[in-house]
């Protein structure tokens, strides 16, 4: 069974409490239509499992198939440098059909980012490397397409609709709670 490598750490973009019962990790691509379809579902789950679950997003841009996927990933990292990763993540997915270089700059402006810094970071090879490292961790973790999800470090192979995902999350929560009472 494929496992998340490396495990979730402070290097990751995380929403929610790292001590939560469940950590859901998504390897995604900002230009992938399936990731776009999964976005509102994941958003709803994050809202509904507020106290119980943390969510992590890692980049897995399929750059040959999706010409703007890498740029979008780098743009989100550039936004992260100004503390706005999740805002950028949301805006890109919400406007996925308009994705392009110009659009990424417009999104950065709409988030009131310091544009000089943003444009610098957007071209910074270090940001590109950050995205590549996440892609590489995805390969080692057995990502076989996007989106790929991991629940508490174990690859989730079922479909990404709300019911299937939350069923698996509920199972992980009760498993975790049971092992905690035993200990």
């Amino acid at each position, binding site marked *: 069974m494929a496992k998340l490598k490396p495990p979730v750490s402070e290097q990751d973009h995380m929403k929610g409490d790292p001590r939560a019962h469940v950590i859901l990790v998504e390897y995604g691509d900002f230009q992938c239509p*399936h990731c776009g379809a999964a976005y509102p579902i994941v958003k709803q789950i994050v809202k509904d499992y507020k106290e119980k679950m943390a969510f992590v997003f890692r980049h897995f841009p399929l750059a*040959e198939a999706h010409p703007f996927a890498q740029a979008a990933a780098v743009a989100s990292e550039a936004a992260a440098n100004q503390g706005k990763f999740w805002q950028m993540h949301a805006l890109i997915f919400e406007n996925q059909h308009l994705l392009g270089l110009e659009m990424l700059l417009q999104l950065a402006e709409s988030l009131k980012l310091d544009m000089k810094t943003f444009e610098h970071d957007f071209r910074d090879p270090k940001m590109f490397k950050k995205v590549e490292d996440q892609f590489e961790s995805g390969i080692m973790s057995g990502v*076989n397409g996007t989106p790929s999800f991991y629940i508490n470090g174990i690859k989730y192979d079922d479909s990404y609709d709300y019911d299937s995902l939350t069923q698996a999350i509920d199972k992980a929560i009760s498993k975790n709670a049971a092992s905690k009472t035993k200990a």
Partner: protein
Amino acid sequence: MLDVNTAAPDFRLNATPDQKFSLSELKGKNVILTFYPADWSPVCGDQMSLYNEMLHYFNKYNADILGISVDGKWCHAAFREARKLHFTLLADFEPKGAVSKLYGVYDEKKGQSERALFVLDAEGIIRWNYLSPVGINPGADGILDALEMISSKK
């Protein structure tokens, strides 16, 4: 399927409509053989497209990848172009599935190759193999682990 530690049998198949390619041309390189059921699988980020994104990771290990299915050479040509694939696809077309059979990964009922992976070392010895359920894309973690193992034993 052929076992680990056996020599990978050589074969010669069409790589493009007017070019044939032999496995033996890659002597001295590690080789990933990926047998798959068919071109044009409908999913986003299908197995071949996924490997296409990973070519420079394979290159780091001095490895080339060859895709093999029973699709014809013109079919492969169109598929490669549509998905912008930058590696060789071989047509195991006539006699149909002969190479897949040679490697023990042919599904007689469906008339197509199984979804199977082999990693060969520079001497052409099979060092790792994997048969995936046909509907499940096995990803590349096993391939990279195998390449890592080969390079660490040198």
